[in-house]
């Protein structure tokens, strides 16, 4: 999955220094000739005027996740199923624009507000509501002004701002990421110049959490490491720690003076409840810990393409929060100057209006509910059709858009080649792309692949 992207395209941290490696996209075979002709040979560009100065650039490998959808489109089989997609689909397997978002779009048009540059830190009204949504409006940290919030380009952009802050102010500090994690996390830290290593997370034997391994690895990390945690609905496994396990994770992080760094891309989308899905983050904050938290509204408000999210840094004092915010701005300015206004206004309008906010909660419950229903149906089909007695209950225990099926690469290939089910090769399926009507077919495919292919 992500490893194929890394090998040729994204360099490991050791290959990168701040000024970036010279040899990023150039394959090894061409290096010597390239260097001699372009760097040291002093051959004038005029003499080689028909040759592009970028001739040595290789074709980058396709994105492993997007490649799944492309292959799906090319397949003409009538029973084909796209479970690679990381975007919500209706029961009819269509993209979904929330009604409350359509209303907000119309409302914005009617309001006719100007398109002036936002401040570097983004729309103030958005920053206020996004922090309140995550931490709770009554959270003391809000009143004490201990949260630095900067509007970011959805989850990715918010993570990148935080990564750049870590690189600049915590030189040499490592980020620990779960094994596995969202494929782009590594790319973000690589490009930001932040070293990373993995903590154990997924246990293929149980298709569940390797909690002991996770705790051991977090304990073993150098003091003051940044621990990247998925606030809820872990991507790609769908496996979340229990509340008790979260407490122990917090204990260890505190013991080692690590900094918890949350990626919350599914608040409200996992359980259907905004508050419930924020409980892990809030527990850390309630302990008085300093916390970094990146938010995204791509899934929970279906605002994928509007790129709306935020980076929040909960600090021990308002002065620290002010300083941190100023440095986040300093990172954003040379990256894109200021963030896009449209998505921010949609969120601010919805959250700021009690009717729209209630409607949003209802639609979110509906989306999360559909996914839960699909999980149940899939589980029922797997249990009734699989006579081997294998325990498929992990499908129910996992939460959110994604599930790790436990299928290996060969089995995944069988899913695609024989059953026309498209998924990523790590065994991840997107429940958001599954309809009740197709659960039985999927169950058949999974059972066949699991038992008949090794």
């Amino acid at each position, binding site marked *: 999955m992500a490893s194929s992207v890394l090998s040729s*395209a994204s360099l490991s941290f050791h290959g990168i220094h*701040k000024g*970036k490696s010279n040899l*990023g*996209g*150039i394959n090894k075979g061409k290096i010597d000739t390239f260097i001699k002709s*372009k*760097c040291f040979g002093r051959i004038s*560009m*005029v003499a080689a005027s*028909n040759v592009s*100065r*970028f*001739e040595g*650039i*290789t074709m*980058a490998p396709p*994105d492993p996740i*997007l490649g799944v959808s492309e292959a799906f489109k090319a397949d003409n089989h009538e029973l084909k199923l796209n479970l690679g997609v990381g*975007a919500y689909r209706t029961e009819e397997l269509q993209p979904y624009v929330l009604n409350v*978002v359509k209303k907000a779009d119309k409302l914005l*048009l009617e309001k*006719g507000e100007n*398109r*002036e*540059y936002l401040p*570097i830190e983004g729309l103030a009204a958005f920053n206020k509501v996004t922090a309140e949504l995550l931490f709770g409006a009554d959270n003391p940290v809000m009143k004490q002004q201990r949260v630095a919030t900067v509007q970011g*380009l959805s989850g*990715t952009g918010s993570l*990148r701002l935080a990564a750049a802050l870590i690189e600049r*102010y915590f030189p040499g500090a490592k980020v620990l990421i779960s094994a596995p994690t969202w494929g*782009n996390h590594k*790319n*973000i830290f690589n*490009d930001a110049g932040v070293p990373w290593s993995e903590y154990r997370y997924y246990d293929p034997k149980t298709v569940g959490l390797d909690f002991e391994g996770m705790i051991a690895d977090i304990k073993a990390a150098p003091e*003051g490491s940044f621990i990247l945690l998925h606030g809820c609905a872990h991507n790609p496994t769908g496996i979340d720690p229990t509340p008790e396990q979260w407490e122990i994770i917090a204990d260890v992080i505190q013991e080692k003076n690590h900094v918890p760094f949350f990626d919350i891309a599914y608040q409200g989308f996992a359980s259907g409840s905004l508050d419930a899905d924020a409980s892990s983050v809030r527990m850390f904050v309630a302990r*008085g810990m*300093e916390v970094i938290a990146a938010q995204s509204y*791509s899934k929970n408000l279906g605002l*994928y*393409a*509007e*790129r709306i999210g935020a980076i929040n*840094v909960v*600090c*021990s004092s308002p002065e*620290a929060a002010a*300083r941190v915010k*100023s*440095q986040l701005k*300093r*990172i954003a*300015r*040379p*990256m894109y*100057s200021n963030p*896009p*206004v*449209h*998505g921010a206004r949609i969120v601010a309008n919805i959250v700021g209006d009690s009717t729209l906010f209630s409607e949003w909660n209802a639609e979110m419950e509906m989306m999360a509910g559909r996914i839960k229903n699909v999980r149940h149906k899939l589980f029922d089909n797997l249990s009734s059709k699989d006579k081997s007695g294998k325990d498929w209950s992990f499908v129910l225990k996992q939460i959110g858009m994604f599930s790790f099926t436990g299928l290996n690469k060969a089995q995944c290939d069988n899913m695609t080649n024989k059953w026309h089910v498209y998924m990523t090769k790590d065994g991840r399926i997107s429940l958001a792309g599954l309809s009740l009507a197709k659960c039985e077919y999927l169950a058949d495919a999974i059972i066949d692949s699991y038992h008949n292919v090794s």
Partner: protein
Amino acid sequence: MDSVFAAIVQAPEDPILGVTVAYNKDQSPVKLNLGVGAYRTEEGKPLVLNVVRKAEQLLVNDQSRVKEYLPILGLAEFNKLSAKLILGDDSPAIQENRVATAQCLSGTGSLRVGAEFLAKHYNERTIYIPQPSWGNHLKVFTMAGLSVKTYSYYDPTTRGLNFQGLLEDLGAAPAGAIVLLHACAHNPTGVDPTVEQWEQIRQLIRSKGLLPFFDSAYQGFASGSLDADAQPVRMFVADGGECFIAQSYAKNMGLYGERVGALSIVCKAADVASRVESQLKLVIRPMYSNPPLHGASIASTILKNSDMYNEWKVELKAMADRIISMRKQLFDALTAKGTPGDWSHIIKQIGMFTFTGLNSDQVAFMTKEYHIYMTSDGRISMAGLSSSTVPHLADAIHAAVTRSS
């Protein structure tokens, strides 16, 4: 508990955006914001173009529209139209598929992505920027991993172009070095090369194998003509050579906060462009994954619909004309007051900004005594002036120039 962030110091306010922050704090009824480069109407208000509102109405009415992630390189239709806008509909580079285009976050984002790409894939790490240039250029290129040098540009004695100095400095640059060129309406000086000077610059750059990187933030906004303002870029592309182009729709479509822009890389060959495109995705994906939909959809709607495109041109020309008129009025006011010095640069310079030639003491004086907000380098945004406020500015300049220190 001591903060983990104890070592993090307060960053200084961004000098350009900080001007507006200071302006907002001022309570004076005669305060004037000539800092940030955003267009204002004669009434001193921000402007949303009628054609932009029309485009948005169409988008809202279209029930089939979804908010799915754009591809990493953005809205394909927007990219094609954007390349055509700057290069010309019949550009051979486009016909030959030699242009790799990525929708990016306005001008800044396009510059940053282009610079990151160069830092990763190009053997020359130095970029030459004009002295002076937009304040954010230095940071954008430095953060991307390039080292920044300057080439002579502005001549304070003439308040015009130091052309000899420019040619000497670019002539001394190492082969292959990257050169930032403001396509039109140089920011902050408003001083542009003539067509003849552009041709000389082009010849020099090509003979030395330097790589031009155009910053095109004012196409159509400078002279009022989209084609005229694209001339320098098109001259370079016409010779078959390679270049980078960062486009912004912030000013010319008034889409500032929507962050609409594009990076185009004109390559010698189609297969190179294709590989370059694939590598651009690897720069963008870990930065923000894919660009925002709304602004690009507006721009695309306008560019592809000939009626709307024509409406846009009319509104664009009106903005450009108003600014040209402000230049004339300010020049006339200073002339009438007999303010010492040659103020003709005000009408010779082009675009949103004028380099007044005032020094930072004079600027500070104007801010303190006359509540004029502008950057300390003497740059004023003509777009922030109106017929009714020109007299106040003229008074302030006159006072600053004639006061004894």
